[in-house]
């Protein structure tokens, strides 16, 4: 059980790290939102699954309920995080920000 939890936690950490590096390294506004939106969602999914499993160590109705609440958090993040990213991109397009093309300087 602990091995599974550790696996999920480290997998989540891997994606979070990738997201953080991506935000720093990508060249412009739109591409930077790509790791911020996607990798954070997946990292959170894995980390939350790990925590929900860890919480079930002492199995009872109470801990099951807490784990269910954690899974609910994931569901809402799954809905809200991509929508928020989409909203930011939408705002960028409406404000007239041109996307970066190859050969241009980072900004």
């Amino acid at each position, binding site marked *: 059980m602990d091995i599974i939890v550790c696996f999920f936690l480290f997998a989540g950490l891997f994606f979070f790290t990738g997201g953080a590096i991506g935000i720093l390294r990508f060249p412009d506004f739109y591409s930077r939102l790509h790791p911020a939106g996607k990798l954070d969602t997946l990292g959170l999914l894995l980390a939350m699954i790990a925590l929900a499993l860890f919480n079930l160590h002492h199995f009872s109705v109470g801990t099951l309920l807490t784990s269910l609440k954690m899974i609910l958090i994931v569901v*809402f993040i799954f*809905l*809200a995080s991509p*929508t928020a990213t*989409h*909203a930011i991109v*939408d705002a960028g397009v*409406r404000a007239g920000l041109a996307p970066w093309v190859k050969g241009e300087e980072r900004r």
Partner: protein
Amino acid sequence: MKIIGLIIAILTGVLLLSATADFPIFGDPDSPASTHLSPYYIEKTMEDTSVPNIVTAVLADYRGYDTMYETAVIFTAGLACFIILRIFVREEPGDRLYRHVLTGVTVRVKEGAKLPPSDDFERIDTMWTPPDLIIKTVCRLLIPFIQLFGLYVIAHGHHSPGGGFQGGVILGASIILLAISTDLRTAVQRMREKVDAILCPVGVIIYAGTGALCILFGFNFLDYSALAPLLHVDPITARSHGILIVEIGVGIAVMCTMIWIYNILSSGGKYDEGL
């Protein structure tokens, strides 16, 4: 005049700084707060109020005055925004724009003319931009859950972190989310300015009125154990219920003030379309 003001400000600053020297060191276990006050709250909260969350009990019961004026300050902030920024423009003379919701056709109505009363048309401004379908749909899906969570946070303040302020902010944010995801007119239709402006002081009055009710029963102001005969419970449980009542008042006041301030700021005081 400016120099006098400067001298007064510097003198006050020096006075306050010299006063801080007399304070006990941060986290000092021998300070009066840690030797008398904290142990009392930690030991007696459960006996006195039957509220497991000590923070809530201190906030709304032991230090009830403080929280009441905090609520009044929030209400005052909303009122100040209203008085300073709100512009009452008369219905601007000229043509008005209406949009047919189903087809997206925009109709210009000449001055003086009227559209037949119908739900299919919504009033729009010249700055109107179509709301994004994805954002609109997801927000429509999420807002009920956000509001449910806000109510949960208010009602569950006795047992977990939360209470009137936090729950009120969540409830207010849900309406603001509606205003962001569609436009201000839609949000204002759900929460009219008059309702908003009336509910703001109502929240404060619920709080202060609960305190005044305690006086009527012959107890101190905000001593909720006075409500025991009214609620048909023992005095200790009455204190717990009294906290809930004032938390609801705080929640209403905070929610409406947030919506009010957002609406006024985002539309520049005109209350038309907003961002």
